[in-house]
């Protein structure tokens, strides 16, 4: 593994941070409107990032070809986001500002994100809300008709805009509507149920993709003047996660294998409030929004005996008195309490469970309580006062309190009850951390271009804005900022150079032949493999290795072992996987999964290598060897204040990848150790 930092040019503009983006925009080249309709752009992925990019680019007049593997852009994974989207509008008068949002995001990311990108994100955040309101997003409103906000972990202001627990859905549907308008005009050609299986590079620049029509099974060639990847995150490497089942790494992995640099692969965010794992039949985990931590208090019993009786069901949480409960977040972090950032809350839950205080009756005994009892009491009392009820009975108070909670989180409580068959108004929810979001992704410069000219990467698929940990409600913000407001400007700079040479690219070019052959060979190999185990079998095993060794905490021995285990598992996969079906013959979900898991088996190794390299604890990356006496993360800014950027070399193995460093310079914020005490 050799290291150097020569190869990377982040193209961050010079000047003071608050003028960088304005100044940069004024230097970007333009494409005149009459030329735009001759330029074709491929967008892979139609979540918030891809969908907003499609809408804006086609409105500018470019010809867009959009691809997604679902039957409609409206189903992209972004639809599942619950809690909200940040913007520094200071509507609440709590002294929020662009600087505050910028500062919280940088600090939240544990000083491992690119300063200039984060500042731009904070600057643009308020436009996003205005834009979405204009498009008809029904954000929550107060009685005066103005926009409502709420708080999320890691901040002390109320800047999160929301639409009940369905913010992602509402934002995505408005993107989808904006796209639909352009589809109607013929400016976007939509390829639903299509999966990108390779990037085609001609004379050093991205010129098209190979995609599989998932219904017919046909392999198709598509050309363009630029390719945008907006394919989302890769958390499903872990098998169980909060991601949609189809979320995968194939698009970014294919770009990586064609030379696109991969940044910070080891940064995986674990979300503290998910419904715990129940059995080995389980296919995915369900998130309970972080906003619940505004009112829910997290605890486990103080006594080991109580934890045991809780697990075998002989005692109920209601039977444990206040004095016998350990509200461990409030105890350890008095200033942020239950609202500490996700990595901190997750690790604290793991610590308690490892000490034997877990309360869930599952195999691993992992689970803690999220209790609304205090909040129900408090709201019940307030409501009774408001209504002028003198000496309300306990039951009356409880009913009133439950009504308030219902109006705030009703759909989440409904979802919890459907899944667990328990009523969270009456008994505390059980929660445990789960894999949620990946901060790593393809490396991009300030213009959001990957290391392959003409190939741009936006949304969760790129690496730049969140550092080692993402604060809540900032992924939606980043996706829309990239797609609506950044990429449409920066891509023009690149495309303007192509107008003169814009002869139509032929799909007959030998690079297309080569790529198509590779894709077809691989499909053949999968379908004709004489194995006996299902794809899921391998995926689950990979997930177990990753969760155990590359999950919430990591150490040298575990990581080294994991690398070996993944390599062995990968060999076994190619020897022993069985995928039913025939080539070119229609819908085949097993084949789709097989291709994706094959990619996960490679990416998993890179994630592990990256985690092994980073000998410090920061954000979601917790190396057990590097912690303070109190068990908090110990960062090493002297040696690791960089983005690790990995390069794949053709025909080499993953373990031969080369790592480069992009050094991170902070000129506008002072780098401090992160404390939420």
């Amino acid at each position, binding site marked *: 593994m050799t290291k150097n930092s020569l190869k990377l040019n982040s193209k961050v503009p010079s000047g003071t941070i608050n003028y960088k983006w304005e100044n940069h925009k004024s230097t970007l080249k333009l494409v005149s409107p009459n030329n735009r309709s001759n330029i074709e752009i491929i967008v892979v992925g139609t979540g918030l990032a891809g969908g907003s990019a499609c809408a804006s680019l086609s409105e500018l007049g470019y010809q867009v070809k959009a691809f997604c593997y679902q039957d*409609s852009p*409206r189903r992209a994974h972004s639809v599942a986001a619950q809690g909200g989207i940040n913007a520094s509008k200071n509507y609440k008068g709590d002294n929020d500002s662009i600087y505050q949002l910028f500062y919280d995001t940088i600090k939240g990311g544990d000083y491992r994100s690119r300063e200039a990108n984060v500042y731009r994100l904070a600057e643009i955040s308020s436009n996003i809300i205005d834009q979405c309101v204009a*498009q008809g997003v*029904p954000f929550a409103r107060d009685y005066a008709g103005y926009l409502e906000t709420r708080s999320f972990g890691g901040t002390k202001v109320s800047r999160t805009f929301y639409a009940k627990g369905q913010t992602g859905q509402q934002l995505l549907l408005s993107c989808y*509507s904006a796209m639909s308008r352009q589809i109607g005009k013929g400016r976007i050609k939509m390829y639903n149920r299509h999966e990108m299986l390779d990037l085609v590079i001609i004379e050093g620049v991205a010129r098209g993709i190979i995609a599989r029509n998932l219904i017919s099974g046909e392999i198709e060639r598509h050309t363009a003047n630029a390719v945008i990847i907006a394919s989302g995150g890769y958390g499903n490497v872990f098998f169980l996660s909060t991601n949609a089942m189809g979320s995968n790494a194939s698009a970014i992995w294919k770009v990586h294998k064609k030379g696109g640099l991969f940044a910070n692969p080891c940064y995986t965010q674990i979300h503290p409030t998910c419904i715990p794992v129940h059995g080995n039949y389980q296919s995915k985990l369900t998130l309970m929004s972080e906003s619940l931590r505004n009112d829910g208090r997290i605890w486990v019993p103080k006594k080991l005996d109580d934890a045991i009786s809780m697990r075998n069901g002989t005692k109920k949480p209601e039977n444990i008195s206040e004095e016998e409960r350990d509200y461990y977040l409030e105890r350890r972090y008095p200033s942020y309490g239950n609202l500490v950032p996700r990595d901190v809350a997750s690790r604290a839950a793991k610590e308690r469970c490892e000490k034997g205080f877990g309360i869930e009756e599952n195999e691993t005994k992992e689970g803690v309580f999220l209790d609304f009892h205090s909040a129900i009491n408090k709201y019940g009392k307030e409501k009774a006062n408001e209504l002028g009820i003198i000496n309300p009975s306990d039951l009356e108070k409880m009913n009133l309190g439950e009504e308030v909670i219902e109006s705030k989180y009703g759909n989440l409580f409904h979802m919890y009850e459907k899944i667990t068959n328990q009523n969270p108004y009456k008994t505390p929810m059980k929660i445990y951390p789960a894999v949620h979001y990946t901060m790593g992704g393809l490396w991009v410069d300030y213009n959001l271009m990957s290391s392959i000219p003409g190939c741009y990467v936006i949304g969760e698929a790129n690496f730049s804005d969140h550092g080692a940990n993402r604060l809540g409600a900032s992924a939606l913000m980043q996706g829309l900022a990239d797609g609506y407001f950044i990429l449409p400007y920066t891509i023009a700079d690149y495309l303007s150079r192509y107008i003169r040479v814009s002869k139509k690219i032929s799909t007959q070019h030998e690079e297309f032949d080569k790529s198509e052959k590779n894709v077809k060979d691989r499909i053949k190999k999968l379908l004709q493999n004489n194995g006996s185990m299902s794809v899921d079998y391998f995926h689950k095993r990979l997930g177990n290795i990753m969760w155990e060794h590359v999950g919430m905490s990591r150490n040298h021995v575990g990581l080294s072992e994991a690398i070996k285990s993944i390599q062995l598992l990968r060999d076994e996969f190619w020897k022993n996987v069985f995928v039913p079906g025939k080539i070119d013959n229609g*819908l085949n979900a097993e084949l789709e999964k097989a291709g994706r898991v094959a990619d996960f088996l490679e990416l998993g190794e890179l994630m592990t290598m990256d985690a092994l390299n980073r000998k410090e604890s920061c954000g979601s990356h917790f190396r057990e060897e590097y912690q303070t006496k109190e068990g908090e993360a110990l960062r090493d800014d002297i040696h690791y204040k960089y983005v690790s950027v990995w390069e794949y070399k053709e025909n080499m193995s993953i373990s031969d990848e080369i790592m480069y460093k992009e050094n991170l310079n902070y000129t506008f914020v002072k780098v401090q150790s992160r404390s939420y005490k």
Partner: protein
Amino acid sequence: MKKLLNFKLKIWRQENKKEKGYFKTYQVHDISPNSSFLEMLDLLNNQIICDKKESSTIAFDHDCREGICGMCSLYINGRAHGPDNLITTCQLHMRHFRDGETIYVEPWRANPFPIIKDLVVDRSSFDRIIISGGFISVNTLGKTIDGNMIPIPKDKADKAFDAATCIGCGACVAACKNRSAMLFVSAKVSQFSLLPQGKIERKKRVINMVNKMDEEGFGSCTNTKACEAECPKGISTEYIAFMNNEYIRSFTI
């Protein structure tokens, strides 16, 4: 540990749009009452793979498995999204079935939703209805006014929000004896007509969307309310009345 369950499944298999379909019987054993309906199908598919007797697994649509993407479908024992109310198939758990029960699993059946394979249908007619006008024609680039410059009364905002929660799953169509898509279309029409931003185009929007819906071959509404009963998001048929009103208005005023 709760008692594990066994079921006999009668599942609709169909190679593609042209081929004829049929019910095929499968047995599944040791299903946890806590597993979801789709997790049971995963298990069955795994069984099919291990047996190697069939040329393909059972195809069914799904993605988020959280009741929000609208991708899963399935007609289970004669009901869209199965027994239980206000849920999608991915949120349906096996504890709702009796041990040993025979369960019938079919695709959505409606002409505007042609079958692609087994239990997967093509719902792109819904997309075409949205393309015909289900949006507010605002440019996404450039400057708009501050969000708080458009105050919206809370009751209006809440009503628009309730309409906006439609996930486009198509259960309303599958449940309707006329195969009407009125609930889906009215939800979108209402959301925008209730908001000040959407008022300007309201006439054009409702006419285009209703015409497109007819053109796609969806039937008319006869107020049976089966759609409302099976809609996982509880969209009310009041919105159909609202849309009818909008439609008539668009000709008169």
